[in-house]
């Protein structure tokens, strides 16, 4: 009825105050609600503007663009853009989300929720991939590629055959296995009656026994902010705090049992300084501006003390280093071959690569659209040089 109240005000068109209607704070005697009505502010949104931002896809397919993509194209596009986090077969890398598998696990301990096992609508996959992926280069893929990736994810989940092509026309040929697996919030009926009883205040129980202790698990970060779990590799698969939460504490515990990962210490050590610029060449202003540009890279790369390999390799000492030779990073075949063939990240090669990663070195797996401005490339090169 709040909606009804509000629309009444629109019709009324007055800017009178509402006498507390719509006011959610219990205050007596004072009207705290803002005046309502029309204010003549803002401007009409242009059709091109709406088209640019209104890209959501409804569950019934409204909003789907023209275009199409098949499973085989999808496999290639996925390998180039998605596999670095989600694995070649959508099986997930480290803590990044698994996109395939987990069928019939929802009523088990630690269910595996993937596009195949959990997502109720295919529209969600297309919508999400198009607006938010790949991580660090969102909104850079063509609609055809998004169709292809979606088709490949379906294929990885055994939901379509290898000759399947996804488009507006075939979108609803795909049956999502868990489409019927959801109910609307029923807490008001199932929980409120149980959880609104008068609580016991005295003599409520005979004895109190400890049944579980957090100290036994020892997964709490210590005072210095360091993690007691050694490495992400031993942590449960998840893409955010929420999914991890589902993990059984016993599976969270291996941090305590796992051998200390010496790789962390190795990675933290500065790279060899071969090819690094002498300090005199470094322009501090350019380095500072390069640090800002580096924000674009941070989704995947770390640099500086304690830097670790993430989606992309540590970039300490990258200027002057042979391609594909960062410590303990799993490079694409193309990158390793380039390095073996003598390619060194000198300024010219870096500039070419940063301007157009995909075309500069075919088959490499950096999912980054490229830096458009030469100034940005110069700045970032200076910044990287400052981390020998």
């Amino acid at each position, binding site marked *: 009825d709040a*909606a009804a109240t*509000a*629309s009444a005000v*629109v019709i009324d068109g007055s800017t009178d105050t509402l006498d507390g209607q*719509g006011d*959610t704070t219990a205050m007596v005697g004072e009207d705290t*609600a*803002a005046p*309502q009505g029309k*204010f003549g*502010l*803002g*401007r*009409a*949104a242009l059709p091109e*503007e*709406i088209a640019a*931002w209104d890209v*959501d896809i409804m569950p019934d397919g409204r909003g789907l663009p023209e275009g199409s993509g098949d499973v085989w194209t999808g496999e290639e596009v996925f390998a180039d853009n998605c596999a670095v986090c989600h694995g070649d077969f959508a099986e997930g890398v480290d803590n990044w989300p698994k996109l395939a598998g987990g069928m019939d696990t*929802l009523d088990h*301990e630690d269910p595996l929720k993937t596009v195949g096992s*959990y997502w*109720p609508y295919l529209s*969600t996959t297309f*919508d999400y991939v198009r*607006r938010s992926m790949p*991580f660090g280069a969102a909104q850079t893929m063509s609609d055809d590629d998004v169709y292809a990736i979606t088709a490949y994810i379906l294929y990885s989940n055994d939901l379509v055959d290898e000759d399947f092509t996804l488009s507006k026309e075939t979108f609803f040929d795909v049956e999502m296995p868990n489409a019927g*697996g*959801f*109910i*609307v*919030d029923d807490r008001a009926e199932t*929980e409120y009656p149980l*959880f*609104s*009883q008068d*609580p016991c*205040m*005295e*003599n*409520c129980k005979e004895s109190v026994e400890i049944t*579980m202790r957090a100290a036994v*698990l020892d997964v*709490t*970060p210590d*005072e210095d*902010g360091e*993690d007691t779990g050694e490495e992400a590799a031993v942590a449960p698969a*998840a*893409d*955010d*705090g*929420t999914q*991890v*939460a*589902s993990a*059984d*504490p016993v599976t*969270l515990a291996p941090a305590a049992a796992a051998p200390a990962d010496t790789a962390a210490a190795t990675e933290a050590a500065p790279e060899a300084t071969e090819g690094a610029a002498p300090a005199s060449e470094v322009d501090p202003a350019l380095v500072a501006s390069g640090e800002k540009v580096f924000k674009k890279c941070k*989704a995947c790369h770390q640099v500086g003390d304690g830097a670790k390999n993430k989606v992309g390799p540590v970039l300490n000492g990258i200027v002057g280093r042979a391609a594909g030779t960062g410590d303990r990073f799993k490079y694409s075949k193309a990158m390793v071959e380039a390095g073996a063939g003598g390619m060194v990240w000198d300024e010219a090669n870096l500039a070419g690569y940063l301007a157009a990663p995909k075309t500069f070195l075919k088959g490499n797996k950096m999912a980054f659209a490229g830096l458009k401005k030469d100034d940005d490339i110069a700045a970032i090169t200076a910044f990287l040089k400052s981390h020998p």
Partner: protein
Amino acid sequence: GPDPLITDVQDWATSTGAGVDATPYGLPIEFESDVVRRNVEWLTADTISSINFTPIHALDGTITPQGCAFERHHSGAIELRKEDYRLMINGLVDTPLVFTYEDLERFPRENRIYFCECAANTGMEWAGAQLNGAQFTHGMIHNMEYSGVPLRTLLNEAGVKTEGKWVYVEGADASSNGRSIPLEKAMDDCLVAFKANGEALRMEHGYPARLVVPGWEGNMWVKWLRRVEITDGPVESREETSKYTDTLEDGTSRKWTWEMDAKSVITSPSPQMPIRHGHGPLVITGLAWSGRGAITGVDVTVDGGRTWTKARLGAPGQDKALTRFYLDHVWTGEEMFLQSRARDETGYVQPTKAQLREVRGLNSIYHNNCIQTWWVNANGEAENVEIS
């Protein structure tokens, strides 16, 4: 003997201190440098898509300073200038509109205090006691005074058509984090906020403008709000299907579980806040809140629930805002099992972990509002435990 801090003339009583403007925008004094947000590294693959925790153990009162209020990003916190900010209202409206930041400041404003809690708060504790500290078990929450424009005012400006039943809200960042909200809620108490606790929003909380969705899960409080689309149904985005749905024991999942249930936690004593003083007066304190209205009472037990005592509220409970409670206790060194139990104005009483598990099983991840237990030993040290 006499206290030299009194009998000796101290440096600070002889020489002078810092002048004005020493810190034009100040940070807490160095002695409080441990009161900071903390991350649990093993939870997520990357801090760019992650969450950290408010140091609720070390705060008092109810207002969370922005500088230590938890952060949750899906594609990192972006720097968006007011001048570059645009908010579009489109979809089932009479006139699709675009507002600038300046436009927002010209609409009548309201001030409201609300808590914002991540649906996954306490999620790591579903299966058992796991993290040692109120910051980690309950710190995905903050409570601020927001200044902003009711969303209803902006929707009225565009004119909602009668077919409009939902709004879809999205952010300007790479994740866009879109969510569907029923029109009733949008027209009721949602705000487009640009100030919190009197100052501009911090970057990590959505500068220059975010959505405030009182009492509902934090994921819906879209940051860097760029678009509100009026639709005839929910979009069923990634964040409302594959995430933020609650899987029950039989594998069925609840969706649209927007409201945050009544909940409380003792913030001190707690694992990060051991009792350092001796026997005698002890202030037991904590926070209580409910997404369904005001807190009307909090009970505290020191003996694991054999007997309960009504706590004293720091101030009367406010609608969908944090309430501070105190139990002024005399501690004689006895082992304690501390728990708190909140009650809200609808008569809902915070359940035990066993009661919740009975209804929901162990795989729900989100909306864990169970009663928390701290075991305090004779030395005053506390541990996160589960008890019978």
